[in-house]
């Protein structure tokens, strides 16, 4: 999961302090793994360096957590591209997908598109596997089936999420 893109996405709704960013991240995505301040600090300075965010203002007292960051045009484009790029189908990528969906909802992008794109990517992998299975021997078939079932599980999750998008939107934008 890309913390940089996530923080960028969170900034899309308005400039925030480093501390706010950490809190927002933890609340929406960091259920069991809260961010360290250090992570926020290092990520933000990388983004700053790449010109994806700019410092909007500094409060008295200094320190990295006192800086207010705002997203730049380049930053928005970067988020956009990240969201539109399907993830490589592999096991256990729900957390990334989830983050993307929530970010899309938060930034009022079409979350359905993300899911459709991802399904398409999954199906592409599944087609390759299916094809291999058809041509392969029993061992091939069993190996491919294992991967296929995992991918199918992802796809089921995608369908389920797609069906619940409205509810999710309500929950995250509340």
């Amino acid at each position, binding site marked *: 999961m890309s913390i940089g893109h996530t923080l960028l996405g969170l900034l899309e709704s308005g400039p925030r302090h480093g501390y706010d960013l950490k809190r927002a991240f933890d609340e929406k995505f960091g259920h069991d793994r809260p961010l360290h301040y250090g992570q926020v600090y290092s990520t933000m300075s990388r983004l700053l360096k790449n010109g994806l965010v700019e410092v909007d203002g500094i409060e008295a007292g200094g320190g990295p957590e006192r800086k207010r960051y705002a997203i730049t045009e380049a930053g928005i484009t970067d988020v956009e591209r990240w969201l539109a790029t399907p993830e490589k189908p592999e096991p256990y990528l729900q957390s990334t997908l989830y983050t993307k969906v929530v970010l899309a909802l938060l930034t009022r992008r079409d979350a359905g598109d993300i899911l*459709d794109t991802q*399904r*398409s990517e*999954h199906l592409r992998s599944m*087609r390759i596997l*299916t094809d291999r299975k058809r041509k392969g021997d029993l061992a091939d078939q069993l190996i491919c089936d294992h991967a296929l079932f995992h991918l199918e599980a992802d796809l*089921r999750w995608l369908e389920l999420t797609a069906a619940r998008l409205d509810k999710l939107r309500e929950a995250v934008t509340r």
Partner: protein
Amino acid sequence: MTHPAGSLLIAQDLRKTYGPTTALDGAEFSIHPGEVVAVMGPSGSGKSTLLHCLAGIVTPDSGSITYNGREVTSMSDSERSALRRSEFGFVFQFGQLVPELTCVENVALPLRLNGSSRKAAERTALGWMERLEVDDLRKKRPGEVSGGQGQRVAVARALVTDPRVLFADEPTGALDSLNGERVMELLTEAARSTNAAVVLVTHEARVAAYSDREIVVRDGRSRDMERVV
């Protein structure tokens, strides 16, 4: 949306309502000969209606459907029936085999409807049953065979007229995964060997994985994933 040249069946801006419910709301579709296209989407999204429209079973409220350069929506009912008889094949989830006829008679039925003699029709039918590995069931009635076998008989029946387009609506919906896969394998193989296009309505990814590409129908609107990405 533009459709690539050489498409066999093209639908544009299809709209269809059943009473208060909108089944199709500007759906698009196109398929090449020999292509397998999966139509996916949640239940009630309108994918079956899209299939029925494409196959000339249902007339859309508006929009156009061209098959091989001919406008399907302006055909008379009997013309569309003839088209379905000779150019299209169908596999559904349920209720398609006539329970009173034996399996081979069921498979021969479309040929008989086209006017073939009983003997010739049943000979051809048996050939297809062999290809789908159900020739041993020829004398049985649909009630006496398993779901997977029945579905293979149905596929044989759909292919027996050498259709240009095969419409399959949840063809494995009632089968377990092993049987479902076997049916899909045989179906796509047979279709490819005859260069038939397959319109495959399904909500199962593993079934859709037998397709060349998929389109997604949501709230009556279609989305062609290949061209979006």
